[in-house]
């Protein structure tokens, strides 16, 4: 009986840029996206797997830098026993005379771009049914073509496609969503999907592998590749995830109220990934008084120094100015009056949101300056 094993991965997004980050970090993140190919190859070798199927968006742009094209191909070429099946996705559609023309020119034989929707034999008795993107907006479910791809009786049919399924709301473009029942409809043993960066099982035969190395903060489960074993055409695939990500892009949210133990909360902001390889997006909501707010700053400063990157979203975190805070600032006098005036402006309906935000910031600054001077004088 024919059996097949392969690695399912997708969304390498090679050449994705990190221009908004510190140049050193950006360089490391780019390097991590490149080195993930090695990590995938190592997994394949460890699992004795000869095929790696990349379900689209191998490259992030149609016009990448020459080294962004050449270097990944070099790495893949280093593993001649592995055949790399590359599918164009919406980020890198196979348009004429563009990216893929160059790849075809320079890629070694073990690298197999799947540029047309034609059946290809992966190994005897096992076929890949590719659904490559040839434009940015195909406007239809490309996996519909699988129905026309006939394979010999008893063959293992592996669909390779890129695009969200109808199970996702809002993430995938409606015009090219993949029918989640495609595996059944087209008699597929397995449908390897790309596009969604988080790993997800749609059904027993349909999986998103997610990106092996995440590049942004997302609330899904990125950073894996899947090893898939199929014992026969009708057998349920055995899918195992393997951690591949070097960097952990963590998203944490805290709703802060007076009395909230932020110290304790922040103690769990890092997990098993080393802090220097952890990027954190911290969303803070709620209300803190002035002293708590000052304390928060110290804590977040600590996180920022330890982590590779900290993105603090605290616009929705309100600083409550209590009577005690005002009294602490001053019992009377112009500083007190200024604080009261800024508090009034902060809540004034006469100002737009920007005006109120400016007043709030000015008030925070007043407390910060006061605290600074307190520190100096006390």
């Amino acid at each position, binding site marked *: 009986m024919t059996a097949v094993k392969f690695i399912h991965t997708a969304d390498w997004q090679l050449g994705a840029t990190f221009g908004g980050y510190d140049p050193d970090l950006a360089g490391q993140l780019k390097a991590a996206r490149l080195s993930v190919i090695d990590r995938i190859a190592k997994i394949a070798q460890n699992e004795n797997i000869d095929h790696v199927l990349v379900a689209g968006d191998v490259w*992030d742009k149609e*016009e990448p*830098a020459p080294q962004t094209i050449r270097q990944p191909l070099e790495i893949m070429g280093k593993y001649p026993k592995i055949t790399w099946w590359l599918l164009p996705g919406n980020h890198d559609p196979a348009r004429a005379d563009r990216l893929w023309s160059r790849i075809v020119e320079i890629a070694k034989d073990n690298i197999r771009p799947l540029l047309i929707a034609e059946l290809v034999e992966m190994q005897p008795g096992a076929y890949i049914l590719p659904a490559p993107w040839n434009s940015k907006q195909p406007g239809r479910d490309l996996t519909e073509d699988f129905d026309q791809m006939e394979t010999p009786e008893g063959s293992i049919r592996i669909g390779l496609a890129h695009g969200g399924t109808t199970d996702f709301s809002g993430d995938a473009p409606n015009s090219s969503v993949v029918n989640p029942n495609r595996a059944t409809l087209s008699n597929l043993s397995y449908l390897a999907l790309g596009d969604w960066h988080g790993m997800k099982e749609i059904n027993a035969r349909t999986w998103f592998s997610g990106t092996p190395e995440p590049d942004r903060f997302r609330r899904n489960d990125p950073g894996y590749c899947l090893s898939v074993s199929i014992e026969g055409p009708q057998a349920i695939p055995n899918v195992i995830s393997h951690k591949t990500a070097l960097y952990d892009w963590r998203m944490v949210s805290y709703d802060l109220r007076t009395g909230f133990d932020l110290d304790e909360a922040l103690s769990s902001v890092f997990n098993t990934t080393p802090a220097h390889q952890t990027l954190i997006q911290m969303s803070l909501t709620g209300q803190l008084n002035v002293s708590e707010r000052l304390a928060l700053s110290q804590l977040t400063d600590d996180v920022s120094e330890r982590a590779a990157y900290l993105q603090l979203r605290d616009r929705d975190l309100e600083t409550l100015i209590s009577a005690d805070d005002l009294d602490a600032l001053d*019992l009377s006098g112009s*500083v007190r009056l200024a604080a009261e005036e800024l508090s009034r402006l902060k809540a004034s309906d006469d100002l737009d949101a920007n005006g109120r935000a400016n007043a709030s910031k*000015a008030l925070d600054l007043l407390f910060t300056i006061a605290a600074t001077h307190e520190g100096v004088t006390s």
Partner: protein
Amino acid sequence: MKLRAVRLRDVRRFGSQGIAYNDIGDGLSVVAEPNEFGKSTIFQAVRTALFFKHSSGDKVVKTLAPNVGGGAPRVQLDIEVEGKLYRVTKQFLKKASAEVQDLSSLEIIARDGDAHDWILKSIGSDKPGEGPSGLLWVEQGKSMHQPDGGTAGGKLLSNLLEREVGNVTGGERARLYIQSARERLAKLHTSTGRPTGNYKSAQQELSAAEESVTTLTQKMGESENAHGELRDTKLSLDNLNNDEDINETTDKIERAEKSLEETKIASTKLDGLRLRVETQQDLADTEKARHKRLEEDHAEGFELIEKIDELAGRKEAAKSEYEDAKKLHAPALIAVEEARTIFKTAQETERNSVLAEKAGKALDELKRIEKSIQSAEKASAKIGDLSAHILKINISRDQLDQLENLTRGIAVKTAQIDASRPKLSVDYTSGGDRKVSIDNIPVAPEDEITLTPKTDLEIENVGIVHIRFNENANFDAELSEQKTKMGNFLSDAGALDLKDAQSLFRKKKGFRTECTEQKRLLAVAAPDGLDVLRAEYATLREDTVSEVLSDIGAEEARADLEAARETLETEKISVNSQAARETKLLETIGRIQSNLDILTGSLAAMVEKMGDPATWTNGLKTSKKQMSDGCEKADCLKTELEDATENSPDLEAAKATLQRLRQGERNRSVRISKLREAMARIEQLIKNLQAEGIGERLGETADQLEAVQQKVKAYEDDAIALQLLIKVLEQTQQTLQDEFFAPVIRELNPLLKMVIPNGDIRLGDNFQPESLHRNGLAEKIYSLSGGTQEQIAILTRLAFAKLMAKRGKASPVILDDALVYDDDERLEKMFTALNVATQDGAQCLVLTCRQRAFSDLGGQTLTHETWPE
């Protein structure tokens, strides 16, 4: 707040017995104690109790430690807050504690930290380091220093006022915060509002990123366009290389070539038919022309016959007329000879009569000329005589002028000699007469002799007197020369002297006048000269020598001659007319004969060509039939040609079709070539763009742009917030200053006038005190003496305390050994001012060591008590 009692124990010099001042009143209270008593310790202890935590280890607190013993410093204050009495007790350093007791209920209302907070709240103060706002202090020596510590000018008082106001309003801190905010803003903005530092760098980064994004976006556009162009080019190339199209075109060309060959054959056939039509048409045209000529010859022949008959008739008529004319010719000739004879006779008669008339007129002329010759000869003779006379007188006008000049020169020279030389005259004595002689000539008594330069005077019987002298000029030589010239001139002129010369010249002039008159007369008599006149005379004389005779006058003879000429001419005309008529008739006959000869010749030639005129009509009919047959045949061929032409393929169209198709083929090749070139160019362009990795670079730059935008926005937000903070702080500060400054000044000025009569503080802009006005003079605050500045400082506190008291917020003024620089008079006035200020509710505690000087201060003198444990 009001201070009602102060108690200390184990504070510096105050040991376990302690010290207490109880029952401190509302107004002015005086603690008059000698030096080293510990007044400043009391002052310091009150401040420490109010503003330092009991647990504080501050050095200020430590200074409270007792000089003797190891007790813990303990300070107790009774204070009145809003009408209620409280007791504040604090122990420092050891077993530190604090408590506040409500004296009305004796309940401890706060302890330790709470006690401290209660105190600060009650006295309306905030931070000890910035001074109490509930108390107005004038620390020992500091009251002076404070004004002196100002920067300049009116700021002294304003600083003082602001400090006091600020102590209540937080102004000092506001300034500090504003300064801090400004420092932060300065890191973002220059003084002119331009970004600086990191903000500026971020903006520059932003500009650079925007520019990069724009450039890369353009390149992306170029790339897209290039790909589109490449796609279109390839499509066009594919279309051009379409085998089906190419085969179709090839087939078309082959068909067109075949069609052209067929058309050429058809065209050749058509050309043969066209030639036949043309030949037949030429034949028909020839027949037509021949028939036309035959018709013309036919008409011409019959016309000739008619004309010959007519000319023969006319010739006979002319001959008959000629014979008649010849018969009239002989009589006319006879009449002409007769008339000619008569004419010649009349001619002779007329010539004779004319000659006779001419001879008469010539005789009269001869007589006139003869008379003119005589006048002319006479004038000519006179002219000859006068000319001879003129020639004899050889003197001209110029010569006469020179002679006159010489005469005048001689006279002048003579006069000069005469004037320059001495004169000699002799007066003889009796008996001596004439015994003096010169050059042997005796000198007469009446003589006056002019001496020459060399004169020898001989005196008889005496000797010779030689007289010599020199002259500057050589008068004698010059005179002699002029006289010689004179003599020569006179000799040339033939004159004796000047008068004679003048006379001769006048005669010569008269001769010339006469000669001119005679010449005029000669010209009248013989204008062309005498010889011409004489020749004319001789000619006329010859003309008049022959004698002419005539019977009739010349006029009559001329009339007869004219009549004879007319008769002769008439006869001549008659004869000539007759002869001309004969000649003309002969000419007519000849001409007719000539025409007859020509026509007869033509007729003979026509007969020779056409045969006998009797056969001409039948020949014409035959010719007409031949002509009709030829035309009919030509028309048939034409119809055949038209039919053939209409059905024949168009050779030009076939050629054009083939040419068009072949040109299309060539165009396709050219187009393919150009498209391939274009494709190579575009592919190279795409390759270049791909080498740049513009998509990736654009993504990276766009990320950077977004990050920098956020950064710039953050800086902008910071700047805006800082500006808002500064603005609000300044506004609130200003508001409070407005609120406090003016009333303080209003309170201050009356107090000031008590100390400094007519003194008045003037404020500048924004309540800034500028000067002290007194006795009409304005003095800058900083120019005042140290004592005056201290007085203003104290009065300001009093004014403020007064104001606070009026507002129900009493603020005690504590003066620690102040007014040390005041003279007695000024001190008295300050006492008065202190009393006035405190009468209106302000509480003032004066600590002084100058017991005597302050004895007149008034108020309540406090006496100390012990405060043992």
